[in-house]
């Protein structure tokens, strides 16, 4: 029973991370049809933004990590700046381009960011002690959980609730939702494209910053490609959730998180290393059964 509960908490925690990533990717994808493969590198930038550039193996931070609010604000600002800059330099000239062209561009942007990081910080992994006191386990009922898991789940819940609120109640949120469902129609109805794309990039950058702080705290290591796997899982979550649907992206993220945690806990020993094969096998099956994802959006469906 305890194993099951623990597994569910693990799944919720992993799912929260994937859901945040999926939301960040899904927001941009719904609006611009941009499959942003550079998103993982936004996450990496967030983590490296904490550290003074050097090639040494131990990381020296700019800011005192005990001043949490300042750290969070600084990381958010850096990631938002990188996201807006990459949009301005790489994606904005291609607004009329085909999705495949945008995808290749985002690959290139990701490479530029990753290699810039390697140039500034060296390619060796760096140890970093960010809020490592959060890793100490605390007792919650019958379970002993690292405080970080609870922080992750709470942070994700707060962010998701805040974004839901922004999306439903504020002017920009409603415009973003309209643009994500049908950009052309939203523009006809008076949504200004430039600002709303900027807002979407900033929101997705904030999500990337949150993910990078949570992941860096958990792993305690900076690697130049640390965001790539998260991005891949997030992207897959977007697709199985239903492209263009933000709640679908979140749902997909949680599904993949739970599937990974359950398989990790309950696969027999010799088979456990093949966990990702099972996860992706399941994803292929889901796609074969529901090609347009779990939650369908009318405007996105491809007309045959």
């Amino acid at each position, binding site marked *: 029973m305890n194993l099951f509960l623990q597994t569910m908490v693990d799944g919720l925690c992993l799912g929260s991370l994937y859901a945040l990533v999926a939301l960040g990717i899904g927001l941009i994808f719904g609006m611009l049809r941009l*499959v942003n493969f550079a998103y993982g590198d936004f996450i990496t930038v967030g983590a490296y933004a904490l550290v003074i550039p050097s090639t040494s193996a131990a990381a020296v931070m700019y800011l005192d990590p005990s001043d949490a609010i300042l750290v969070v604000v600084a990381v958010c600002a850096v990631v938002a700046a990188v996201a807006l800059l990459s949009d301005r330099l790489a994606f904005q000239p291609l607004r009329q381009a*085909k999705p*495949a*062209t945008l*995808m*290749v561009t985002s*690959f290139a942007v990701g490479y530029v960011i990753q290699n810039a990081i390697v140039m500034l910080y060296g390619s060796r992994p760096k140890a970093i002690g960010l809020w490592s006191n959060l890793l100490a386990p605390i007792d919650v009922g019958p379970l002993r959980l690292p405080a970080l898991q609870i922080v992750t789940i709470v942070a994700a819940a707060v962010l998701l609730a805040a974004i839901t609120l922004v999306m439903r109640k504020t002017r920009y949120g409603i415009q973003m939702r309209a643009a994500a469902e049908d950009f052309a129609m939203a523009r006809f109805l008076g949504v200004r494209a430039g600002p709303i794309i900027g807002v979407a990039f900033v929101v997705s950058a904030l999500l990337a910053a949150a993910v990078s702080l949570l992941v860096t705290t958990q792993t305690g290591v900076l690697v130049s*490609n640390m965001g*790539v*796997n998260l991005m*891949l899982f997030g*992207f*897959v979550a977007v*697709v*199985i959730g239903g*492209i263009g649907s933000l709640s679908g992206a979140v749902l997909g993220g949680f599904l993949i998180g739970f599937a990974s945690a359950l398989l990790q806990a309950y696969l027999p020993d010799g088979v456990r*290393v*093949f*966990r*990702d*094969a099972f*996860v*992706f*096998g399941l*994803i*292929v099956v889901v*796609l*074969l059964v529901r*090609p*347009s*994802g779990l939650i369908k959006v009318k405007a996105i469906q*491809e007309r045959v």
Partner: protein
Amino acid sequence: MTVAMLQPGIEARRHHARQYVAGLATLCGLVALGAFASGPMGGTVTEMMIRMVVVVGLYIFVGNSGIISFGHISFMSIGAYAAAWLTCCTLPMVKPLYLPGLPEWLQNTAAPFWVGLLAAAILSGLSAFVLGLALMRLSGIAASIATFGLLAVQFNVYTNWESVTAGHQFDQQHTDLRRSLDGFLLCGGGDRGCSRPSEFPVRHHVAGRAGR
């Protein structure tokens, strides 16, 4: 008024013939360079040719279907391992040491290169056929993601099936997931990025006319 303008067909055909001859000559030169040059040059040229074969393979699928396939690189991996299982490690000791999970008859086999090449083509072709039957019911981005799922499954299985693939013992650089994903980039990202070969004559024809 030139002769070429009166006979655009002949001029265009000559132009193509020249292009094909130039292309063929370059290719022959490169093959010779790859075969005879020693050191890094030979290696670079050989690698370039391998990539070119990959691109042609990708193009045949991506260019004609419009589906961006992330998964095609996994067929390359399937073929490579098929070849390695048959041809690798001529010494009687090495193969059972590294790949103890292989069936008995394979452990004692060290086939010549061409057998490995044939087996690679057959095994990857067969698996592509079987998987294609299932996956190609999908279209658009769902199909792309399904092929990515395939890549992830194949990558994970081959990396961790130690006794048969020695996954972790080989250079990790060559079994990096992102690296395999990059494969599709070689193709320029889909049919809209590449020009179809059939378009080339048309375009030259049009360009030739407009130029005069």
